[in-house]
């Protein structure tokens, strides 16, 4: 796998809700190389503080060299990034990590919660292109409220895959959790579940999969310094108490290989 470091121009800035932003970057080398579930490292500001880059899943790529990230303002780095303007350049490197392993011959169930929806858009596109039959596939998206996910739901619908929605406040789709929807959805026995979202949600998804006997791929987070295996900072425990590195061995893992301790 080849990585690139690019000065990427911000070609589009979308404020999807009060604190959710989608940036479109012109970053042709990285965009061309990225597979679903992979991420990039971005320098939020120019100065030495905050010092480290921030990891973001690639949300979408286009064949004309654009790459999107979708993020929520949670701290200083994302706040600075949310103040950048169209036309400005930011430093990006990637693609990094191991993404989702698409099982072409098996029904897919994508489950995204909150910002965990980010990597699933590129995944949905890839699935729609790689698979002959997506009639048994389903995408389940969840968020706090319609505000947070309305714009995204529209984007997912373009692939002709069934999209189900849940919101905490019932303002869009099912009133409740994605896991409720998942439980109530008939999934083929050989379905593969691809998920990303808050740890609580992913654990619930994993548990449902365990019960139903479904394969479950989760995309997890960790604080990162380098994003490329150089600092050894991004460790997580496996089920059998070994360490894996999220940036190298993940961010996508088989749910059952990890230790879940909430």
């Amino acid at each position, binding site marked *: 796998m080849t990585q690139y470091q690019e000065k990427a121009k911000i070609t589009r800035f979308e404020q999807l809700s009060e604190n959710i932003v989608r940036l479109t970057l012109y970053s042709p080398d990285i965009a061309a190389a990225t597979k679903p579930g992979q991420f990039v490292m971005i320098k939020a500001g120019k100065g030495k503080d905050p010092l480290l880059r921030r990891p973001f899943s690639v949300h979408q790529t286009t064949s004309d060299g654009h790459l999107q990230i979708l993020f929520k303002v949670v701290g200083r780095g994302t706040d600075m990034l949310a103040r950048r303007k169209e036309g400005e350049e930011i430093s990006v490197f990637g693609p990094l990590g191991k993404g989702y392993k698409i099982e072409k011959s098996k029904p897919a169930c994508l489950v995204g919660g909150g910002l965990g929806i980010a990597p699933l858009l590129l995944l949905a596109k890839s699935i729609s292109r790689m698979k002959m039959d997506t009639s048994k596939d389903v995408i389940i998206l969840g968020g706090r409220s319609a505000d947070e996910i309305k714009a995204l739901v529209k984007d997912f619908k373009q692939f002709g895959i069934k999209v189900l929605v849940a919101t905490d406040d019932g303002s869009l789709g099912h009133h409740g959790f994605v896991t409720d929807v998942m439980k109530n959805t008939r999934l083929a026995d050989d379905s593969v579940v691809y998920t990303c979202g808050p740890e609580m949600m992913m654990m619930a998804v994993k548990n449902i999969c365990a019960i139903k006997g479904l394969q479950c791929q989760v995309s997890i987070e*960790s604080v990162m310094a380098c994003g490329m295996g150089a600092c050894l900072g991004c460790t997580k425990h496996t089920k059998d108490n070994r360490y894996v590195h999220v940036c190298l061995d993940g961010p996508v893992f088989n749910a059952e290989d990890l230790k879940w301790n909430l």
Partner: protein
Amino acid sequence: MEFVRNGDEIFPDLRVNIGSLELKNPVMTASGTFGYAREFENLMNLHRLGAVIVKGISLAPRSGNPPPRIVETACGMLNAIGLQNVGVERFIKEKMVYLQGLQIPVIVNILGDSIDEYQEITERLSGVKGIAAIEVNISCPNVKKGGVAFGTQAHMAKAVTEAVKMKSSVPVMVKLSPNVTDIAEMARAVEDGGADSVSLINTLIGMAIDLESRRPKLANVIGGLSGPAIKPVALRMVYQVAKAVSIPVIGIGGIDSTEDALEFMLAGASAVQIGTANFINPRVSEDIVEGMHRYVIDHNLSSIRELIGALEVK
């Protein structure tokens, strides 16, 4: 102006000598911040480096500390990786082949719990093709002495140096800990012990606390502070050590630009190591080599060596 031939291109003279080791330029990557070099092969031209220093190697593999292992601080970061590494055998088998293929000097950073361990690992590395030097990390706790770091006691620092020197077939660079009252005393001790050069600084010991959970942010409680925040301390120590010893000094600490690197050389460093900056700009070391190239031309220097210790102090 003096020129050096390097492959097809003609460069201004960036060569420096670390004792008997000649580097084509003064820029090395610091241990633990550059993996085993291969991680960076797509993002920079590894052949432009003066030398590469690999992640610290111990006798047996080590799995390191539990997470969280890193936390960002003001203009810096704390790490408590816990010296995770594949161990000397796997290093030689799995990592050296790639490194041998690079046309640059490879320096192996070693660490141990006891003087014996330092010595055994040196023995094991002795004769392995492609190792240009050994860098001895003496910031590790001496298990036999209740966990006091080798690098904080002059006699222990000297003893480790002597032990490694006895077994090493290549030059030995000793990497000093900054967590001491008198860094010059430590430098003199390892010089006495036969070190061919000293590198400094390793990380300053620090801590971060999460107010909400009332817990340390690092699972290991304390960690090593690196990055621009520590540069002033590193520069001061390099200056003090360069005055105290006659072996070459290698400057480390918060370097992220050509200017930073050259400041360390003015303070007395013959070469520099780039650490944390590799995470922020993976091709920073190559950029610094290029910056030095331009600097030597623009300032009409006959060699970059003119800058070493050239600080004017009235």
